[in-house]
């Protein structure tokens, strides 16, 4: 590999997370936080077709899987951004420490999300 960088691994997940976050998170926030709460017919109707709205939606395993994936990718995206911002701000920590701290935090967020989702 002659001095080749392994950064592409982090960068590609970061890129994927960015796309996913940009496309899905606003929609999720809108559907779960704004549209439903504001009582928009189309949104609250769709949510309420089960017994209890969002809870009903989350009882579908594929929905939980997709939500978990979105959250995990967005967390890695944020971790990568924070790691590079810290380096740019001249935070003098060994690269390995920053890698473990940032992507580690993303892993913790992902696991917690998975646990919460599993409880439904």
């Amino acid at each position, binding site marked *: 590999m002659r001095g080749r960088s392994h*950064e592409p*691994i982090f960068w590609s997940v970061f890129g994927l997370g960015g796309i996913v976050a940009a496309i899905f998170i606003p929609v999720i926030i809108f559907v779960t936080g704004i549209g439903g709460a504001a009582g928009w017919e189309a949104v609250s109707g769709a949510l309420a077709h089960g017994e209890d709205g969002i809870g009903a939606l989350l009882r579908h395993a594929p929905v939980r899987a997709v939500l978990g994936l979105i959250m995990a990718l967005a967390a890695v995206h944020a971790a990568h951004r924070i790691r590079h911002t810290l380096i*740019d701000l001249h935070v003098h920590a060994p690269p390995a420490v920053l890698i473990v701290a940032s992507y580690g935090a993303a892993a913790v967020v992902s696991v917690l999300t998975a646990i919460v989702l599993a409880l439904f």
Partner: protein
Amino acid sequence: MSTAIETMVKFEVFRYQPDWDEPTYQVYDVPYREDWVVLDALNYIKDTIDGSLTYRWSCRMGVCGSCGAMVNGYPKLTCAAFLSEYLPGPIRVEPLVNFNVERDLVTDLEGFMEKLESVQPWIIREDGATDDLKSEYLQTPSQHAAYQQFSMCINCLLCYAACPVSSHSEEFIGPAALALAQRYNLDTRDEGVEQRRDVILKDEGIWECSFVGECSAVCPKHVDPAGAIQQAKMTGAIDYYRRLLMPWTVKS
């Protein structure tokens, strides 16, 4: 009787000579002219107040790329920074940051020159036919358009002064050189992608870039080095996974 009172602008200019222990800021009062740029003021200082002030310039029209400096903390071509934008002053002029200073506003370009050379910013032909003057290498307008923007660089190095990565990594090849590497990699007449690959795909190549994008924001020629680096990252990532997952499909 009316006396026209000249408006004066205060200049605080970074001064350093190799035999000094410490740099200092020297203050000069320069008459304000509507059509003057910071370079005119520096020339006025050198011609009428202090002949020892040292700085680089040549074309006065944003073409040669030699007059870059920090103007009130922002990387600028001094020949394109109108005094009117900085009224009432003071205007602080300093050498471009992220470079060593040789004297006053003159920075050491040696490191950049080495980086530039390392990406081989010239057309490479596998058959070595670069000096075969009889050959024609035709290109369609859209093939030309693919790299045209990246070829507008005047090596003014404002992008290096703006780059947070260049501020902490001396080895980082940096925006202008990486944009030029991409410029040749995208040129259909060029066959040097393989030869540039190892330099570009190191950490100190494209991967240290944290995509802050200030290089593109300060570039007076709209080169968009940040865009060039992102393009190169995409190809670099594909290359990485291909080597990892399908090593038999790559040469060497």
